[in-house]
């Protein structure tokens, strides 16, 4: 494959001129996306590092704050995101194996619906509810009832879940573009890089939530309260 000359490659049009062959191009695409994702690790990493410091300074307040969140919504949303990751890999699988456009689009749209469901659950059952309960620092926070330590926890909660939700919204935008590109027949088993690297992004956002769920919802265990 590597020794394949562009001149003899019937699919050369799908390979940008700086690359030898599709394999080298795929390698560069994936490496470039991973480099971006590493900057995202550091981006979220600053929040995780400050979370660790303040949780170690105020363990009791973080536990109290965590118990104000509803585990059932956090767990449901984790499952919703895992389902969306599955539909995303299946969309890419369909492109790799040359399945029909409609198969790829079906899985992409399913991924978008699951992503939208995640944001819907977050907004409707959690954030609006938190607002009504006076748990939103700076906007509506009942300091007399919850105390300043819980307020600090809620700052972390809204910053981390908010930044995550922003990534989800951007992901939905990317998926919309992918649906249009698929409908226009831009992808084939020889070329599906946009699907591939968008998949990396989507799974990365999933991984962030995999850490946010236990770190925000499950602090100190739930045995004393038995949930809500």
């Amino acid at each position, binding site marked *: 494959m590597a020794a394949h000359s562009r001149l003899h490659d019937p699919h050369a049009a799908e390979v940008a001129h700086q690359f030898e062959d*599709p*394999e080298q191009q*795929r*390698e560069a695409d*994936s*490496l470039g996306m*991973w*480099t971006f*994702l*590493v900057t995202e*690790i*550091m981006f979220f*990493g*600053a929040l*995780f*590092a400050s979370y*660790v*410091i303040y949780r*170690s*300074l105020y363990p009791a307040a973080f536990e109290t704050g965590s118990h104000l969140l509803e*585990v059932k919504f956090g*767990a449901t949303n*984790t*499952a919703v995101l*895992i*389902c969306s*990751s*599955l539909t*995303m*890999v*299946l969309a890419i*699988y369909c492109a*790799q*194996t040359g399945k029909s456009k409609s198969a790829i689009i079906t899985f992409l749209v399913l991924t978008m619906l699951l992503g939208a469901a995640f944001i819907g659950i977050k907004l409707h059952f959690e954030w609006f509810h938190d607002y009504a309960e006076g748990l939103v620092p700076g906007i509506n926070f009942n*300091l007399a009832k919850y105390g*300043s*330590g819980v*307020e*600090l926890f809620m700052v972390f909660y809204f910053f981390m879940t908010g930044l995550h939700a922003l990534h989800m919204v951007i992901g939905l935008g990317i998926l919309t573009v992918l649906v249009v590109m698929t409908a226009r027949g831009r992808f084939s088993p020889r070329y599906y890089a946009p699907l591939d690297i968008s*998949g*990396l992004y989507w*799974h*990365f956002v*999933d*991984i962030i939530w*995999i*850490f946010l*769920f*236990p*770190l925000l919802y*499950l*602090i*100190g*265990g*739930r*045995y004393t309260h*038995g*949930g809500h």
Partner: protein
Amino acid sequence: MSEHIVPVKTYLAVFVALILLTALTTGVAYFDLGPFNTVAALVIAVTKMLLVVLFFMHVKYSSGMTKIVIIAGVFWLAILIALTMADEMTRVWTPDPGPWSNPSLLLPFVSRLL
């Protein structure tokens, strides 16, 4: 990265494992394990991350170059957290910040810096 098509069966197995681990991490939180509640939560989260990275993100089949870039990123994150904590936990000379929302309590802090 040589093109490697992962069979649907593998994806489904990883998916089932991720759902089961989510149920496990939620279930474990209802048992009193003391400090091990946090340990269990983190071990399960890291396991789930590895499953997603290796199979859904195809890193198991990626080139060594890509793997090194990812490991470097995670290593850098470890430095960020470990050195920040090492600093924070050995600062016997800094006063406890107290309630963070009360600016007047930060004044002794600020005057110390000036």
